[in-house]
């Protein structure tokens, strides 16, 4: 990577020539090298010039705080911008978080945030426990704990009544124990009291949708309690952070901002030689590879463990390596030190062509956008090639020594998830089934024969508390087969469910190769005999199988039952949703108006009928996808 002065010059010449995408990539390089307070304002000033030309994801973040966070704001905004997120930040008045939450007319609500960070410190909210614990009786200490938890519960409840925004609450940090070694000899104590409050916060988040805990205590501990703070700045300007704590703090916020804005990766593409194992397979042979439970092979095995953790979180894995295919597959299959095996991977590109092309092919094979791929390769030349050729791929900066690989991966915000559904855990299995389906498609005679041979069952169910997380996740992650691309939080889905004029349905698909789980969402709103389709989306795993026709067929019945005579829906074009462009046209809807490139389509329910695909069995249920109450076709 070039020197930072050269990088600035490169950025500026890209800006002058209007090469925005390249300027974005070079600013990313600059930030990785110079990502500190001084560089932040420079990065921000560059983005001011080019923001309008880049496909950035906007978000609005409000900080409610009992500490000075202002110097961190430009750092946060810069770090988010180089990852494609344009954050507008509002910082609440110092220490007036409670008033801002409780007053519906406060600046917090007029800012209309997407994300609210509640950054309150133990020393402010529980001063008697932080600094004075020795004076407290056991009952006093318990009363303080109860009061803090009651306050948090009240604020969260009040906030939820006024806003749908996601909430990220810093949990409470522990001081260095003021009771000395006595602290851990008893059941109760200063640290135990803080543990109790943090357990209460965790439980509180479980009770409310879209409320999350940031483990601030673990963050401080990870970096060292004695090193995290700058007591001088705390006393002087109420800023607790030492200079070296600012980037880790910003990194911890970004880990929430990425999944909350949907800027996440679905695939990790990894190299093999000197990445998954030590050594070069073609030169050292399979027996010469460093990989196993002993040093030095244990370092690579440790990295594989970090990858396996992502796999269990629903991240798809792919191999992108320059090697002889058969030899590498044999090593993956048979090397006794491997934790990862071929079945953990959804795609392989083991060949001698360039990696940019291989990554494009992996995206096409998995039916995903190229921007959902993150790339991990020990070779800086390969990383630079990918960064330049396919700037959409998230290239992970790899430390100089394998010892740091696992942590580099764990620090990546692209793989953070706020929920884990059963579908996530089975994802690779579903792609293996998909591969078998594609093989079948190649052998089946006509398309109709193929559809029949799939033995598809579509289960359309009213959304229930069990399925809300998955349904919200689909609205946030589905880009291609999505007519309106409206993103909803779990809280917003729950509100649709509660409205009598709205229909909110999950769509599950099973076939002879397995259960795909919930792969589609329908949301409708009926008013004055017009049923409007607010959301119609389908995961790309199941498109091209006439399931969309079954869904529209269901909607015609459901909207008639609601007393509608017209079924209408907007198509709002995006860069990615061309696959769904002709959905309404091909089902005989008529275009009736258009606005900013979007088109409103309408179907007269009195005249038209959607011919139901005879090869799909449809089940309509009130709730559970397992119910068998079926509508005969």
């Amino acid at each position: 990577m070039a020197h930072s002065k050269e990088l600035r010059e490169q950025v500026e010449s890209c800006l002058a020539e209007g090469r925005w995408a390249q300027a974005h990539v070079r600013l990313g390089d600059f930030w990785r090298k110079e990502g500190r307070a001084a560089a932040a304002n420079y990065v921000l000033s560059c983005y001011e010039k080019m923001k309008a030309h880049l496909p950035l994801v906007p978000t609005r973040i409000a900080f409610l705080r009992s500490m000075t966070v202002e110097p961190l704001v430009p750092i946060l905004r810069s770090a988010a911008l180089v990852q494609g997120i344009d954050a507008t930040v509002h910082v609440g008045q110092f220490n007036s978080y409670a008033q801002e939450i409780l007053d519906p007319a406060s600046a917090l609500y007029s800012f209309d945030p997407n994300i609210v960070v509640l950054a309150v410190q133990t020393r402010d909210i529980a001063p008697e426990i932080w600094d004075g614990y020795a004076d407290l009786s056991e009952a006093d200490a318990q009363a303080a704990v109860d009061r803090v938890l009651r306050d948090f519960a009240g604020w969260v409840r009040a906030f939820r009544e006024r806003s749908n925004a996601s909430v990220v609450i810093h949990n409470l940090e522990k001081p260095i124990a003021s009771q000395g070694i006595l602290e851990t000899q008893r059941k109760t104590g200063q640290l135990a009291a803080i543990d109790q409050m943090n357990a209460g916060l965790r439980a509180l988040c479980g009770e409310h949708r879209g409320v999350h805990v940031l483990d601030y205590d673990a963050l401080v501990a990870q970096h060292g309690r004695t090193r995290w703070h700058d007591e001088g700045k705390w006393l002087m300007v109420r800023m607790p952070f030492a200079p070296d704590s600012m980037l880790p703090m910003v990194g911890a916020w970004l880990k929430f901002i990425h999944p909350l804005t949907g800027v996440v990766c679905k695939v990790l593409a990894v190299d093999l030689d000197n990445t998954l194992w030590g050594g070069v397979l073609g030169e050292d042979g399979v027996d010469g590879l460093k990989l196993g439970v002993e040093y030095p092979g244990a370092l690579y095995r440790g990295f594989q463990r970090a990858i396996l953790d992502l796999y269990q979180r629903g991240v798809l894995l792919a191999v992108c390596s320059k090697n002889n295919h058969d030899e590498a597959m044999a090593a993956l299959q048979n090397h006794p030190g491997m934790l990862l095996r071929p079945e953990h991977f959804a795609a392989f590109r083991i060949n001698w062509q360039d990696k940019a092309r291989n990554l494009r092919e992996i995206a096409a094979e998995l039916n995903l956008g190229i921007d959902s791929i993150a790339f991990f390769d020990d070779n800086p030349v390969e990383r630079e090639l990918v960064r330049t050729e396919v700037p959409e791929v998230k290239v992970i900066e790899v430390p100089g020594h394998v010892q740091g690989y696992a942590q580099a991966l764990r620090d990546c915000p692209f793989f953070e998830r706020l929920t884990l559904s059963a579908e996530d855990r089975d994802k690779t299995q579903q792609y293996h089934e998909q591969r078998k389906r594609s093989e079948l498609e190649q052998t089946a005679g006509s398309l109709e024969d193929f559809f029949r041979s799939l033995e598809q069952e579509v289960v359309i169910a009213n959304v229930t508390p069990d399925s809300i997380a998955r349904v919200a996740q689909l609205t946030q992650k589905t880009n291609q087969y999505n007519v309106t691309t409206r993103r909803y939080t779990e809280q917003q889905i729950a509100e649709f469910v509660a409205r009598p004029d709205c229909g909110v349905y999950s769509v599950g698909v099973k076939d002879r190769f397995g259960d795909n789980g919930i792969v589609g969402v329908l949301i409708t709103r009926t008013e004055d005999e017009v049923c409007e389709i607010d959301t119609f989306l389908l995961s790309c795993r199941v498109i091209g199988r006439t399931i969309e026709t079954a869904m529209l067929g269901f909607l015609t019945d459901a909207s008639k039952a609601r007393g509608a005579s017209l079924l209408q829906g907007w198509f709002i074009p995006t860069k990615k949703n061309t696959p769904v462009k002709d959905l309404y046209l091909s089902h005989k809807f008529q275009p009736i108006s258009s606005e900013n490139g979007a088109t409103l389509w309408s179907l007269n329910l009195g005249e038209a009928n959607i011919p139901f695909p005879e090869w799909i069995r449809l089940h309509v249920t009130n709730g559970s996808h397992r119910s068998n109450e079926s509508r005969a076709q």
Partner: protein
Amino acid sequence: MSQTVPIGPTNLVLNKVLAVATDVFQVPQSTLVAGSSPDTVETWDSLHHLSFVVALEQEFNVQFSPEEIEQLLSIELTTALLEEKLKGNGSSNGSGI
């Protein structure tokens, strides 16, 4: 404290302080001189002062005490204090992290 002191090419600390100030206060480097201070730089308010302080701490790998933070009232004073601190640290001009 003169506003016309030319910037010596050999003064590494001063040049780095000027570069940090240029970024933090968002002004063209040519408008900054050794005597630039909160009185002459419009954007040098108390919040920017704090940002300036933490940026310097990161760039030079030092930490300022509250008393020192109150002394950093011009480019020249900042440079002098940093030179003193760096001498005390036995560190070079600190290329940061």
